[in-house]
């Protein structure tokens, strides 16, 4: 699939919003992939954290917001501690959640009302906490 790039799209309002909320410079990313390599839940993600950063920088808003990556992120901060450029990737993930949650049609990745009966009693909280806003920023 071919995407058309222009100065309106690259580093657009969406990307700038993610940068503003997270306080991180997306241009700083090497695309080395260390974040994804160390992420304990990367196997289940639609895109690795490094890819999410790349897509965001290129201004691909719809594609980024439709992936499960930042919802699966457990904020274990492994990525942030390993990033050679000192980018706090967990904060970027949180910023992406915030972008969605701040929208009118805000919707958590998990809906408590949709849980099967007795589910909440059986699973430890930590197992689904990542499906919600983390209040990191």
């Amino acid at each position, binding site marked *: 699939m071919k*995407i058309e790039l222009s100065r309106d799209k690259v*580093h657009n309002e969406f990307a700038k919003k993610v940068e503003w909320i997270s306080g991180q410079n997306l241009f700083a990313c090497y695309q080395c992939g260390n974040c994804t390599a160390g992420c304990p839940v990367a196997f289940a993600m639609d895109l690795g954290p490094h890819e999410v950063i*790349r897509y965001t920088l*290129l201004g691909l808003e719809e594609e980024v917001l439709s992936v499960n990556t930042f919802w699966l992120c457990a904020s274990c901060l492994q990525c942030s501690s390993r990033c050679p450029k000192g980018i706090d990737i967990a904060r970027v993930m949180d910023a992406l959640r915030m972008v969605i949650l701040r929208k009118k049609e805000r919707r958590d990745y998990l809906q408590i009302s949709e849980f099967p009966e007795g589910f909440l009693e059986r699973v430890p909280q930590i197992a689904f906490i990542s499906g919600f806003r983390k209040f990191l920023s």
Partner: protein
Amino acid sequence: MRRLGVFICHCGVNIAGTVDVKKVAEEIGKIEDVCHSIDYIYMCSEPGQQLIREAIQEKQLEGVVVACCSPSMHENTFRKAVKTAGMNPYLCEIANIREQCSWVHQKEKEEATRKAMEIIQATLEKVRRNEELEPLAMSINRNVLVIGGGIAGMTASLDLAQGGYEVFLVEKGPALGGHMAQLSKTFPDLSPAFPNLLAKALEIVSHPKIELFCCSELEEVKGYVGNFEIIIHKKATYVDWTRCNGCARCIEVCPVEYPSSFDRELGMRKAVDFLYPNCVPKRVKVTPTQCRYFQDRSCRKCEEVCPEKAIQFDQKDERIHRKVGAIVIATGFDLFPKERLGEYGYGEIPDVIDGLAFERMLSPDGPTRGKILRPSDGRVPKEMVFIQCVASRDPDRYMPYCSRICCMYTAKQAKMYKEQVPDGQPYVFYMDIRSDGKGYEEFLQKTIEENGVLYLRGRVSRVFQEDGKVKVWGVDTLTGKGIEIGADLVVLATAIIPSEGVKELAAKLRATVDKHGFLTEAHIKLYPVESSTKGIYLAGCGQSPKDITDTVSQASATAGKIQALLSTDKLFQDPLIAYVDETVCSGCGICVEICPYEAREMDYRRGISIVHVALCQGCGACIASCPNFACELRNSSSVQTLRMVDTFI
């Protein structure tokens, strides 16, 4: 019968791990004239050399064979060692049992041991008939010729002149500076190129030890290291430079304008003009292929207006003779030509330009006075695409090598663009980013982070015009997505190639070039500024693509090497060269034709062919070609060689 000694080196496990060195020493020791045969872990070490020296004195040895690594490694070491023990160094020979035996036969230990013995026996045959020789001493001329007036040639010339040596600096164009004069700012400190260059250029023209020849080329060279005779072809400028004061009135009145190659065709110049406005020396030159006087004698305006009467339409080329001891080739580079690329719209789409053209655009004295403007309509480009590795790293179609400077100059250009056009977006298509110099990576990362330059990893497949834009089709392999950009201006980082005519120049100087035309150094690591011919040195991009930092370092290294060469009283050369038995030579002249070093010449008075000892490199071509067996190589006579071969068969 000579008393011979054999010293077998283990080279740690390099030899001893494969060859049974004890057995070899024992077996060789049984040979009648071998009075001493031992092995040792490292013969080249100080105690190892001491073993040789002691054996020579104790057993009055008259010849030594050291069985070890290649003679190019340690022949010199051991010859010096035997000399301190009072033996003529040419009675010491190396039997190479490492590169030519143990390393290549690691799985065949028994055979390797047998082969090592045979190699030693063959070398013993040579030593039995070696003569005692003395190095040849030759006088030396202390002047230097530097070919090329770019930053490499300028640096080498200044270093040599400051060391007290007379320098003849020959530049093909009408002024100093080379490609550096075309640049705007330089990475990684963004220092402006021209002021730095100007300081050096002014020093050169005022230096009493440097004689500058502009519009000149080396026409002929004869001789050898320490004693070259050269002829410089100084082409007519049609202006008496001793009178011209650079007032530029002639330029004002000249009616002929044509695209300036210095400005990469982005600007115009006159038929009488400076190379560039503040060039050094600030002298004008008439271009006869453009000038109306030379077309049909219809215009003499410059001549009429010149207050100094400097215009000389009848000026002739000159041939200037000089003698030098060493020569520096600093011929620099060209960019990959438009005609040969045939893609990316290079040469067809006006808004697709090369990196050097963009440098002219960024230069305050350039055709746009430093403003970034589209050549097609003069508008400021808002979508700016840089494409790296154009014709570089493309072994299938163009050049296989990396041109080394493009990654950094592209980053610098993208930075300068973004600073001048803050609402524009620079994109860089790259395959890998090479930023290996001091401060380079930091500069690059700063450019990406602070200036928002978007780096896209992937090659561009197509560049074409559509709706007033230059469409660029590429890919971002990081996301796996195809990319399309409607660019306003595209800058191609085209490959660096050796400058035109360097092959012919190298042939004149008996220097060699590689398959791409870059000058070859004597050894890539140990002799990187020496050419394959003694007395000929290299500096700058003529040897390989490099940036200004590396060029200046290499030019200074070259100057240092030459100063070391020229500061000796006499030059000493290995005496292992050809000689002629004058009673046998029939004067057929086959050797004269076959000699690659022009070391053989006919002496018609005596009817024989002679050897120029200083030119002969001891290659043996004349010996193999002589139908009368009239010439021989010192210490590699036919008898010696045949006996060595006999040992093996």
